[in-house]
């Protein structure tokens, strides 16, 4: 419905989509789990923000607060055998498929117990057992790699009841990455070879400090999917139900071997490009917009829907928040106590083969 103008229209208008979610026909148990996950992502990142402010964290952290529904909604339909690749802003993508918050904190602190053994920090996260192959900060760097994960899955040719039931590659990237050439190469390749891969474009309207209106001719990134004959959906990225529904529609096609999908999820990050500040003094538009976007809160809107349908009370939500806060604080305390890597790891991890020898 937004395609004719190639513009996001009201999806990019913070005055829209503030009401509670439409959860008709949804499984309330699943939604409560997703509410908990989104709360965990937010509270973990609030903790990270606080610890940066206290000087406990030195490594650069890009926070996803405000965008939690995307990771939670996409993860609903992913398998542990799928191959998801992330970006510099991937704490949520890492946590959503079930990776530990302690592993995240320890990694950010450079501890041996971190999810990347203390070698990666916030921007290089590993969660291979969960299907999260890894995240890296080179913008668009993992987009083609996820196509490779999809090509591998196509070659695996998983079958169920005599039909294709392929695993998929998943690449999370932002609207800024869509300005990189390899994204277009990747879309073209995936389309021509019918690669089972889901391109998840988190369009938060900003690349670092610069609004999309100053970087692209139109704010609808899906126009590039159209150009390459890739199936696409454009949804409110702050609506976990809409994200999950669109994900499923695209993945059903991809798993059947009928081609890749492009999911454009429109959202807004509440914090700056990097670090805990809100950065309302950075760049154009942001100062006036942020307060409005906070009213399109993905967590609040889901809770209000669950409350309206009688699945959850204010008291339940308070208890959930307290429970998550306890989990987060315990994980942080443990990570703080954990040891740093042995210095020998500086050299032993360079190659798969021991000592870098032949």
């Amino acid at each position: 419905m937004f395609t004719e103008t190639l513009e996001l229209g009201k999806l990019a208008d913070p005055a829209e989509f503030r009401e509670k979610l439409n959860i008709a026909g949804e499984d309330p148990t699943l939604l409560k789990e997703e509410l908990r996950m989104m709360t965990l992502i937010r509270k973990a990142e609030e903790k990270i923000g606080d610890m940066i402010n206290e000087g406990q964290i030195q490594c650069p952290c890009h926070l996803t607060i405000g965008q939690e529904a995307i990771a939670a909604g996409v993860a609903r339909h992913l398998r542990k055998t799928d191959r998801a690749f992330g970006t510099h802003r991937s704490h949520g993508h890492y946590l959503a498929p079930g990776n530990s918050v302690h592993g995240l904190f320890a990694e950010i602190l450079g501890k041996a117990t971190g999810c990347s053994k203390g070698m990666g920090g916030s921007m290089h996260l590993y969660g291979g057992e969960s299907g999260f192959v890894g995240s890296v900060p080179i913008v668009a760097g993992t987009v083609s790699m996820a196509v490779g994960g999809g090509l591998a899955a196509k070659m695996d040719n998983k079958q169920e009841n005599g039909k294709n039931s392929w695993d998929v590659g998943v690449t999370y990237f932002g609207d800024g990455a869509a300005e990189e050439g390899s994204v277009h190469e990747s879309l073209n390749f995936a389309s021509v070879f019918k690669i089972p891969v889901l391109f998840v474009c988190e369009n938060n309207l900003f690349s670092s400090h610069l609004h999309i209106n100053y970087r692209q001719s139109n704010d609808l990134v899906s126009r590039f999917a159209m150009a390459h004959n890739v199936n696409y959906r454009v949804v409110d990225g702050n609506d976990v139900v809409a994200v999950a529904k669109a994900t499923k529609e695209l993945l059903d096609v991809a798993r059947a071997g009928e081609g890749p999908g492009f999911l454009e999820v429109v959202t807004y990050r509440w914090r700056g490009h990097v670090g805990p500040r809100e950065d309302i003094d950075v760049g154009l538009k942001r100062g006036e917009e942020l307060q409005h976007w906070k009213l399109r809160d993905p967590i609040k809107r889901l809770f209000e829907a669950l409350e309206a349908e009688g699945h959850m009370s204010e008291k339940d939500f308070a208890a959930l928040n307290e429970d998550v806060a306890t989990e987060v604080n315990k994980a942080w305390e443990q990570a703080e106590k954990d040891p740093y890597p042995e210095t020998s790891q500086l050299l032993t991890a360079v190659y798969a083969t021991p000592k870098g020898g032949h």
Partner: protein
Amino acid sequence: MTQYTYGTALREGFRHLLANHKDVFAIGQGLWSPWYVGSSMKDLDKEFGKDRVIDTPVSEAATTGLAAGSGLCNYRPIVIHPRMDFMVLAADPMVNQAAKWSHMLGGQAHPAVTIRGIINRGGQQGAQHSQALHSWYAHIPGLKVVMPATVADARDLLIASTLCDDPVLFIDDRWLYDQTDELPDSKDVSLHDIKPQVLREGSEITLVGAGHATLLNLKAAEMLKQGGLDAEVIDLRVINPLEYDTVVESVKKTGRLLVTDGSWETCGLAGEIIAGATERVPLNHFKCNPVRMSLPHAPAPTSGPLEEVYYYNEEDIVQRVHDMMNGRVKAKGPSSFEMTL
């Protein structure tokens, strides 16, 4: 024993891998065409299917990136860049991604990808169709770089690179393709076992090179032999990570070191070998200053007479060896732009 050229030995390496390892596939531009990669991949698509020998759009970056991604997901892709110049477009997936994933994810993720970059020069092709960029890539921790010089290594190093769990840049040179040799049946080879090798023993000077430089060194050594001079020829084979033992032992014996390289001098392989050797060989072993031979500090020309001067040959190496033997090598001046044609 079967007779191979360097080109058909490469093809035999691909055949062995595709026939015996289901996780191997080849991908790159021109793989279904007879033009791009010559005898080295002829009809592999017909023998193993177009799903495992994949011709691609003109997308070096994405093709290399997706191969690195497949290499993280239980496959062993070989990406082919028919000209190394175009491989520069794939620098991000090679340098930032494949080379880094193991280290930055704590040794838990290994992109088992082989990137084949072909040096394809001469014939007045000029600056963007002639580069030998091996030294650039050998600078990067995490990216192994191999340069087969012989017919046997064309096949066996391709097999070893592909079966290695680390990302490997495999560089072959079209100027090597016409060499012939007889080889035993192919078998799996481990890159662990590949070290620099002495291709020809000698006592008076050590000639070191990799890839096509090794072929020139062998030809020069043969000419020197005619003149009664006994040169040892060492083929490096793997230029990252570098192993110095073979070179060091040889220089201790001969006291003279000449390193030839098919690329430029500044921050290049030849300088690296000389530095590594002088750090390891006691100075009193050296009978003269080590010498390197490389290309003039200029892009490759197209004009025939200029091209002829640009690339040195085995006779130039012989001349330089005689200069070293006769104490005619002078200390260089201060500028790296000073060139000897």
